[in-house]
């Protein structure tokens, strides 16, 4: 397999409390990797380690390395805004920016100066709204506030906004957990369509969602990585006792 993200000796603690211990992990390129485990196991912390969001958490201490395309993102010489441009994030709850639908998608294009003129901007915005499966619903009200959209539509807007800056990696922190079943299905479909072009890392605590989406699975328990491997192998023939117990619904 082609490794896109390589995590070595990764430790995270919040103050005194150790949250992640000794994580070593390789995440394959162009596939959907699902990080699963019971709540409080450190899934989200691990995810936030991949776009340097942990440094926004007060009292968080990080040790170890995370290599993306062979570069350690925790190297002091790295530009954090470039890392986050490369690694998009779909949060648990959609948070549109306080601007119109159009400007939400254009925001990233503007700050990274990715468009030469207005027409190119229009095309990009349209393209990524289509990519996120939202275009048909919003094409007549692009300049209306993003807040007027339903939660499900907002999440797709956030997806379009994230895709617009051409990330290589897409992180999803339980991106469907605040959505109704139909919107959740929408997002899942988009993610499956997008894995051709992006490396996707998803955190979920819904086992069935993990089974629907995952090509590669990471199972976490109490801050440790218990097991990882291709989805079929882990689901059908888990090697560790704790994975077996989790898959049987014992946690």
């Amino acid at each position: 397999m082609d490794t896109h993200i390589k995590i070595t000796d990764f430790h995270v603690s919040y103050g005194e409390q150790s949250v992640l211990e000794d994580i070593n992990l390789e995440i394959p390129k162009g596939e959907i990797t699902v990080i699963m485990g019971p709540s409080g196991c450190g899934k989200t912390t691990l995810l936030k380690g991949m776009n340097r969001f942990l440094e926004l958490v007060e009292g968080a201490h990080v040790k170890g390395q995370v290599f993306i395309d062979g570069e350690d993102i925790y190297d002091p010489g790295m530009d954090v805004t470039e890392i986050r441009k490369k690694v998009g994030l779909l949060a648990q709850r959609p948070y549109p920016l306080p601007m119109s639908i159009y400007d939400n998608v254009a925001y990233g294009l503007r700050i990274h100066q990715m468009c030469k003129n207005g027409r190119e901007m229009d095309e990009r915005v349209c393209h990524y709204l289509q990519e996120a499966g939202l275009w048909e619903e919003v094409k007549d009200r692009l300049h209306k506030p993003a807040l007027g959209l339903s939660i499900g539509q907002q999440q797709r807007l956030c997806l379009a906004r994230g895709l617009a800056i051409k990330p290589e990696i897409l992180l999803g922190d339980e991106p469907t957990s605040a959505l109704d079943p139909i919107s959740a299905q929408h997002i899942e479909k988009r993610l499956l369509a997008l894995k051709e072009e992006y490396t996707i890392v998803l955190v979920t605590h819904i086992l069935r969602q993990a089974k629907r989406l995952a090509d590669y699975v990471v199972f976490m328990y109490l801050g440790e990585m218990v097991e990882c491997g291709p989805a079929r192998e882990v689901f059908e023939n888990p090697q560790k006792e704790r994975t077996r117990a989790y898959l049987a619904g014992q946690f």
Partner: protein
Amino acid sequence: MKKRWAKRHVAEAIFKVLMLVSFAMVAGSLALILWTILSKGLPAINWAMLTQAPKGGYYLGKEGGILNAILGSLIMAGSGTLLALIIGLPIALYLETYLRNSLWARYVRLALDILWGIPSIVYGAFCFIFMLAIGMRASMLGGIIALTLLELPILTRAMDEVIRMLPRDLEQAALALGSTRLEVALRVVTRQMLPGIVTAILLAFGRGIGDAASVLFTAGYTDRMPNSLLRPAASLPLAIYFQLSMPYPEVQKRAYAAALILTVIVLVASLGSRWISSRLGKNVIK
């Protein structure tokens, strides 16, 4: 099913009546004030009042106007609000960014709340004593400083509340797209906060322009047009006070006309800021 007059229904009915009474009291007071000002002030208002300074004998019912007080009030309250904003915004940002909910933040907020509650005559007297000590005479500058101090706690606390309401996730959403901190502040946070800040500014301006006691000693009063920071300046609340205390009915009527002008200024500022807020606020994330 038949409605039974149980205790809880009676209680609800009583509270509904109480609510109606309090609404009637509030709305009634406003209507009564407006009616008084309009019915007494409107007949007395004329073009000269808005365009001239008082001439000799104005307070005896002769010619002239109160342009000096209108301008004086606008300049002093406007500058006071601006200064209070310049001082208050960093305080509010500092509270949010560094002090957060620490013990110090609580002390600062408590101090501001107490300052908010201090009667304006105390601000006036305080500034006056201070001005005496440094040998400064009643002047427009003194009035501006007194109004700045009066408005500062209002503006700071109102902005503080606005900033505290800012959702953290919003910053994170912008950071996740690779924004710098500055881009988050300028492109996202200000958009979210501007409507609230406009409201805070209006609140402070309204308090400043309507206050008589704080400018009484500090700015003094004069019939001249405001022309220097170091000379006394007239203000609308004092114009109302002086005219109303004259024993001539026609001068007293002019006091109501002046009150009408002041009310219109506050009304225009208030409606204007609402308009701005709603324009700026249509995208705000709730």
